[in-house]
C-alpha cells in the first residue's frame, strides 16, 4: 500500500514537535531538593540478591555497576557542591565486585576512589582496605591487591607496621616483583620517607593500566621532586645566611652572591617563592602542584 505524502509530512512534523518540546522542557529546571537530601539512589543494595537476579549475566551487570561507580565518583568529584556526597561509592563497588569477584580493576581503582582525601575522594581508607581485603580473599595470589592494601596503610593512614606487613605478604605471592621486599624493610625501619614513596609511585606509574592513574602517579612524583628541590634551595638559603649573617630578602640576593644562576622553578616551571622573614622556600600559590603533602605526612 502506498503511503500518502501527507502521512510522511505528519510524521516529520510530529518528530520535529517532539524534539522542540524536549528542548523547551530541558530549559525548565525541576524544583530543587531540600538541603541534605542525597540524589544518589541505589535501589538494590544486597549483593546476594543482585548476584542471583542477574542470572547468567553477572559479568555484564558488574560492568554496568562499574560504569555507574566511575560516573558517580567523577560527577561528585567535579561537582561544585560544597557538600560532596560519596555515600553510594562503597555500596556500588561492593555490588560490582560481588557480581564479578575477579574484577581486579574495580578493587584497585575503587580503593583509590575511596581512600583519596575528601573532597577529591571519599576519604575512607578503611573502606578501601575492606574492598581490597575482599579482593585478596577471592584472589589470594594477586600481589597487586596486597600491595595496594600496604599502600593505603602507608600513604593514607601512615601505619607503617601494617603497611610493611602487607608489602611482605605481597612479596610472598606468585610473580611478585623484587622491589616489594626491600620496600617492606625500609617502611618498617624508617617509616615514611621520600625514597619509599618514590618507589611506590614509580611502580604505580610504570604498571598503571589507565591513563588517569598514571597521571596521578606522575603528579605525585613531581610533588616529590618539588619537595626535594625546596629542601635543596633551603639549604642554599642556609649557606647564604651562614656566609652573610642575614637571610636573603629576595632571589636577587642569592643570584648576586653567586649561589643561584636564576630564579629556581618547581618541576612544572612555575618560579618558587622565598619568604624573606623565615628563609623558607615554598611553591607559588598558582602552581598546579599545590597543595604539597603535609610535612607530617609520610614523605
Amino acid at each position: 500500500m502506498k503511503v500518502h505524502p501527507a502521512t510522511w509530512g505528519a510524521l516529520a512534523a510530529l518528530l520535529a514537535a517532539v524534539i522542540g518540546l524536549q528542548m523547551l522542557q530541558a530549559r525548565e529546571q525541576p524544583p530543587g531538593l531540600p538541603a541534605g537530601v542525597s540524589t544518589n539512589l541505589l535501589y538494590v543494595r544486597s549483593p546476594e540478591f543482585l548476584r542471583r537476579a542477574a542470572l547468567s549475566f553477572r559479568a555484564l551487570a558488574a560492568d554496568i555497576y562499574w560504569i555507574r561507580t566511575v560516573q558517580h565518583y567523577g560527577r561528585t568529584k567535579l561537582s561544585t557542591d560544597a557538600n560532596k556526597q560519596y555515600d553510594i561509592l562503597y555500596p556500588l563497588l561492593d555490588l560490582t565486585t560481588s557480581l564479578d569477584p575477579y574484577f581486579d580493576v574495580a578493587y584497585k581503582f575503587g580503593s583509590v576512589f575511596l581512600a583519596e582525601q575528601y573532597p577529591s575522594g571519599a576519604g575512607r581508607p578503611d573502606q578501601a582496605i575492606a574492598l581490597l581485603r575482599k579482593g585478596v580473599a577471592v584472589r589470594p595470589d594477586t600481589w597487586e591487591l596486597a600491595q595496594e592494601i600496604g599502600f593505603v596503610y602507608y600513604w593514607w593512614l601512615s601505619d607503617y607496621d601494617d603497611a610493611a606487613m602487607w608489602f611482605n605478604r605481597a612479596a610472598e605471592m606468585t610473580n611478585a616483583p623484587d622491589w616489594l621486599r626491600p620496600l617492606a624493610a625500609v617502611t618498617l625501619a624508617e617509616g615514611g620517607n621520600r625514597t619509599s614513596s618514590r618507589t611506590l609511585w614509580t611502580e604505580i606509574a610504570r604498571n598503571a593500566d589507565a591513563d588517569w592513574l598514571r597521571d596521578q602517579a606522575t603528579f605525585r612524583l613531581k610533588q616529590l621532586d618539588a619537595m626535594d628541590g625546596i629542601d635543596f634551595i633551603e639549604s642554599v638559603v642556609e649557606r647564604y645566611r651562614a656566609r652573610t649573617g642575614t637571610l636573603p630578602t629576595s632571589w636577587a640576593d642569592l643570584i648576586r652572591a653567586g649561589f643561584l644562576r636564576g630564579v629556581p622553578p618547581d618541576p612544572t616551571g612555575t618560579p618558587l617563592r622565598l619568604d624573606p622573614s623565615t628563609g623558607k622556600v615554598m611553591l607559588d600559590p598558582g602552581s598546579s602542584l599545590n597543595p604539597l603533602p603535609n610535612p607530617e605526612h609520610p614523605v
Partner: protein
Amino acid sequence: MRVIGHVAVNVFKESVRDKILYNLVVFAVLLMSVSYLIGELTAGQDVKIIKDLGLASISMFGLLIAIFIGIGLVWKEVEKRSIYTLLPKPMRRQEFLLGKYFGLVLTLVINVAVMTVAFYGVLAYMQAATPQNIRASWPAPATDPAMLKAIVLIILELLLVTAIALFFSTFSSPFLSAMMTMAVWVIGHFNEDLRNYGATISSPVAAALARGVYYVVPNFAAFDVKLQVVHAQSVPLRYLALTSLYGVTYVALVLVGAVIIFSKRDFK
C-alpha cells in the same frame, strides 16, 4: 533423515523470510557503538566490557530467538491449518517435529557463528588500537580463543532452550509456552540453591524433594562460563566435555518427550 533435513531447511528459509537474521545487524551496531562509547564512560576495562557485552548479547539474542521462534514452530502450523496438509504426507510425526527442531538449531548456530565473527572482529580492532603498555595489563589477549569455550556452551544452552520451547509448544499455547520456557530457564539458574536447600531447612522430606528437583531441573548455570573466560580463568576440557554431554543428553530427553506428546496429539 532426508525428511528431517527437508523440514529443517524449510524452517531455516522461513526464519530468513521472517527477517530473524536482522538481529545480526542490531548486534553489530550495538557492539561497534559500545566499543566507541565505552572509553568515555569508564576508567579502563574497555576490552573486558566489550567481551562481557559481546558474550551476553550472543546469549541473549540466541535465547530470544530460541524461545520466541521455538514456541511458534508447531503452533503456527496448527494455526494456519497447514498441519492437516503436512501430516498425510509420507512423513512421520517425529520427523516433522525433529525437522522443526533442527531447522531452528541451524538458524541459531548460523546466528551465533556470524555474531562470533563480528565479536572477534571488534575485539581485533580494539587490540590493534590499544597501546602495548595497556595490552600488557590484560589477563588475556582481546581475541583470546578460549572465549570460544563459552560460546560452545552458549550454543548448547540454546539447543536445550529450543528443545524445551518446542516441548511446551506441542501441547500449549504460545504465550504459556513462552512463560513456561522462561520459567524453566530462570529456575535452572537457581539449581545451586536447590542443592543447598537441605542445609537450611529442618524437614528431611522437603530437603529430599529439593534435592530431587535439583537433579531433574536442567542446570542452566552449568553452561555459563562467561565470567571465567573473560578473566582468562581456566575452563578444563573435562568440564566442557561433561557439560556438553549433559546438555546433549537433556536435549534428547526433552525431544523424546515432545515426540511422545506430539504423536498422541489429536488434530482432528
